[in-house]
């Protein structure tokens, strides 16, 4: 099996038709955004953040701060995902609301969370705290959703016989978690964590420096450094910052993710040994390290004690037959209260939206349409180069082995950090920012497609290739009857992820500040960025809701159908 096979292969939600759950979710989100904005009106009127130093010597310090933020955000994301996954997997009613919620949250652009988080926090906390916390919160909003989905997905797909075995042997919740649920989910969680960190780096700049009206918030950190360098048009500093960022990403990959992947190989469900398991030089070194083994020797007894304690103390789950299909009155009370609050909130949010003029709505519609065209253009260009390149790499193991590290490092560089350089190159060309926006979407999302197509091409059975050779199929025939159908499901999976990523990237792609100037182009992402910058909350609410609605609708009515078709007709398994 090709080692690339699983890179960026994020599990997709099992889409269904629109249900009442979706309606509740959309309304609830509108209310939440509205409430955040309302709270934010009470925040201090003028805020100035600390100055960002551009001297290269501050980089280690800044990098440390950013890494710390990412780590806290990741811990929060994991905690959120665990709770969320358990809730969704255990109660049917919760599942009906929570899974569409995840679907919608995935498509909320990061900047729309900004006022909600920042302003409401700064209204109740000292500014420094509020800014730090909201930065972490913003990073969580681009890390948490896919991890939560992966955890939920694996909780619901645990093989039935293993579940029954843990029931019949009287596992308590702790033992069930440790022996069954966590190991079963481990590999998916690790891959999704890698994707989440990538996403976090991508939006780091947006999460460390932002302005809402006259309120300027900034945090010392790598993202702010890059953004400030871009603002001042200081190319040397951009290069320094970029270098530091790439160094961190590659180091993390080599010292954390690769060893984790190599270690997690033991959690595969397959009953045969893999030909080509992921390897890591650092993992091998760790395994033979005396120091680490000595440390483990010290750590093990207390951990074992804790494990024993948890195993004995927690009550055994799932032992008694459950009473069927009755909710208690408490549940009804809570549900009624929630419904009332939702109703009241929607009226208030509706009131805010009512204030928008008709031409503003027109502008939003036009913006959504333009962004849609841009996303499509980015996807088509990406498909144009990734299909031939992916098939070439996937069909040739030697080429794949050689290109793999190169491609992976290239993919891990967050495109947003490159954006200022990109902007500098194309801003003079006709279509300037428009072109740059498409390029940024493309840079950020093409890897999903490339990796999936490589995986698809390398999964083509050798017999089929031989048959094509024996039949002396022409190049065109070979593509039409073998390669294209074989990579179709993979290309669709990649395209769905890429399209979601491109929509999200629109808020940073369509509106940019560089060299003291602001560049903006027509689009819903630009509208959201402008509205945030100007503190125009009704517009922000309306644009965000329109964007979410557009993305969810396109997912359900376009991608879902293609995905089904690809799964039913073109799966080679």
């Amino acid at each position, binding site marked *: 099996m090709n080692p690339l096979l699983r890179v960026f292969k994020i599990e997709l939600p099992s889409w269904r038709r629109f249900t009442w759950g979706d309606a509740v979710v959309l309304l609830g989100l509108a209310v939440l955004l509205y409430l955040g904005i309302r709270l934010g009106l009470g925040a201090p009127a003028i805020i100035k953040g600390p100055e960002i130093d551009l001297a290269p010597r501050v980089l280690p310090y800044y990098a440390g701060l950013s890494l710390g933020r990412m780590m806290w955000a990741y811990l929060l994301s994991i905690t959120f995902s665990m709770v969320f996954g358990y809730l969704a997997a255990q109660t049917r009613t919760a599942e009906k609301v929570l899974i569409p919620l995840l679907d919608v949250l995935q498509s909320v652009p990061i900047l729309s969370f900004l006022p909600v988080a920042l302003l409401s926090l700064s209204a109740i906390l000292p500014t420094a705290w509020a800014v730090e916390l909201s930065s972490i919160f913003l990073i969580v909003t681009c890390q948490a959703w896919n991890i939560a989905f992966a955890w939920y997905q694996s909780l619901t797909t645990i093989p039935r016989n293993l579940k029954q*075995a843990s029931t019949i042997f009287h*596992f308590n919740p702790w033992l069930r978690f440790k*022996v069954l649920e966590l190991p079963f989910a481990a590999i998916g969680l690790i891959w999704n964590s890698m994707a989440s960190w990538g996403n976090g780096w991508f939006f780091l700049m947006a999460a460390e420096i932002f302005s809402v009206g006259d309120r300027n918030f900034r945090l010392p950190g790598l993202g702010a450094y890059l953004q400030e360098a871009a603002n001042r048009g200081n190319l040397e500093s951009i290069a320094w910052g970029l270098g530091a960022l790439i160094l961190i990403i590659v180091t993390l990959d080599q010292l954390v993710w690769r060893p984790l992947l190599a270690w997690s190989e033991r959690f*595969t469900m397959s*009953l045969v040994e893999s030909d080509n398991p992921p390897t890591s030089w650092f993992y091998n070194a760790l395994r033979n390290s005396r120091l680490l083994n000595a440390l483990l020797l010290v750590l093990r007894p207390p951990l074992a004690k804790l494990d024993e304690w948890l*195993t004995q103390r927690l009550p055994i789950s799932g032992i008694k037959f459950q009473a069927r299909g009755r909710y208690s009155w408490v549940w009804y009370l809570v549900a009624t209260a929630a419904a009332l609050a939702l109703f009241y909130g929607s009226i208030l949010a509706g009131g805010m939206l009512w204030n928008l003029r008709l031409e503003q709505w027109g502008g939003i519609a036009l913006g959504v349409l333009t962004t849609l065209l841009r996303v499509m253009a980015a996807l088509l260009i990406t498909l144009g180069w990734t299909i031939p390149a992916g098939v070439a790499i996937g069909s040739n193991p030697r080429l794949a082995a050689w290109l793999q590290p190169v491609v992976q490092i290239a993919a891990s560089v967050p495109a947003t950090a490159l954006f200022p350089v990109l902007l500098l190159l194309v801003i003079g060309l006709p279509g300037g920012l428009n072109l740059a926006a498409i390029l940024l979407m493309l840079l950020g999302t093409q890897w999903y497609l490339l990796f999936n197509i490589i995986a698809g091409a390398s999964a083509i059975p050798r017999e089929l290739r031989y048959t094509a050779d024996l039949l002396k199929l022409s190049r065109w025939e070979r593509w039409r009857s073998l390669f294209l159908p074989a990579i179709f499901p993979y290309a669709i999976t990649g395209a769905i992820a890429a399209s979601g990523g491109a929509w999200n990237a629109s808020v940073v792609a369509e509106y940019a500040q560089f060299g003291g100037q602001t560049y903006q182009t027509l689009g819903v992402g630009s509208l959201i960025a402008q509205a945030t910058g100007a503190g125009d909350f009704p517009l922000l609410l309306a644009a965000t809701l329109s964007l979410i609605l557009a993305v969810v609708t396109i997912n359900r009515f376009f991608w879902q159908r293609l995905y089904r078709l690809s799964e039913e007709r073109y799966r080679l398994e």
Partner: protein
Amino acid sequence: MSEKLLELKGISQIYTSGDSKFTAIREVDLTLQEGEFAAVMGPTGCGKSTLLRIITGLQAPTAGQVLYRDHPLTGVNPHATIVFQTFALFPWLTVQENVEVALKARGVPPKLRTTRALDLLDRVGLDGFETAYPRELSGGMLQKVGFARAMAVEPELLCLDEPFSALDVLSAESLRGELLELWTGGKIPTRAILLATHHIEEAVFMADRIVVMDKDPGRVIMNLKVDLPLPRNRKDPRFLNLVDRVYMVLAGHTQPEHVELGTAPGEPGRTRALPHINIDDLSGLLEHLDNMPNNRADIYALAQELQVNSDELLRLIEAAELLGFANVAYGDITLNPLGETFAEASIRSRKEIFATRIRRLPLFKWLLGLLRASDKKQMEWDVVQKALELEFHEEEAERQLDTAIDWGRYAELLAYDDSTQILFLEPGAA
């Protein structure tokens, strides 16, 4: 002398979907004495696995009561355990850890866990494999780990859910022998064993008593005592006689045609489910019978000659009966003249004969009628399946339609386009 360990009183399992109800198990009564090795034997789909899950408390029955030592069961039975067909070992734990984790869940302290796990693995002959991971072991060895883990918790009642079905013939045979040795040697604290199997010979080979179940709906049709001394010889005439008796009951007698065919979906009366078989296998069976003296064979002997398991053989026989190619009586199957013609015909004529035969089945009459009456003589899969769900539960309806399309394609009456999921009437069938 022995005490009653387990008693089932009127156990029923009914699944509801929408307006329709499907009975998976109907009013099963069963008692198990201490010291008894009983087998629940029946074709696939008779609900024996469900029954085992109800007995161990993994699942609550819709109606009826499970009494364990005269106390009603209200949850997972702490004195029972299951050995699973697919082993259900945790792939990320070593052989030893897989056994130890069962002890750990019972609160056995660490040191004792290790000694007991090692002792058990030694007893099932896995000495030396303690640190291996499941993926390094063969099926037979995996099931030995399954047995060791089940015995680790010293269950009074050991339930075996088709434990030998996923193994190759030789491993299955040796494991059966080893289990019997442990059981009869009194080396394990188990007080009773309940084995679910679809394999007739296996049940007769191992059990003291066989509870024979049949499907549609799942129910007990016979209780058979096996009085042969252990170890049993499969060539022993008394052994063969018992096997023959079980086949006789399960294969039944060919009924008058209107009873055999049943009614169409949606009409009163029971719709006869199409046995899920491969038509080439059916042709093979008929050709084999055609070569037998008097076109007749003992069903139990057929299983050995054709190297098929009893479950599959019974389904093939059911199909031959349903299509009117053979008659079954007293555990014998006889090819009738029509079946003889089919067996000796060319491929083309076989298809014609097959077509005329399936046109008589009410389910096919109904399906062809639906298609004829519909626009452009075509229908969507989902529509037909929904209609079939009036008679069968969802999974079975899907299987029925699958089988119907397979047979219809062979007979060149139906065509089906998988990409659009549409069924067509072939021009010849209009």
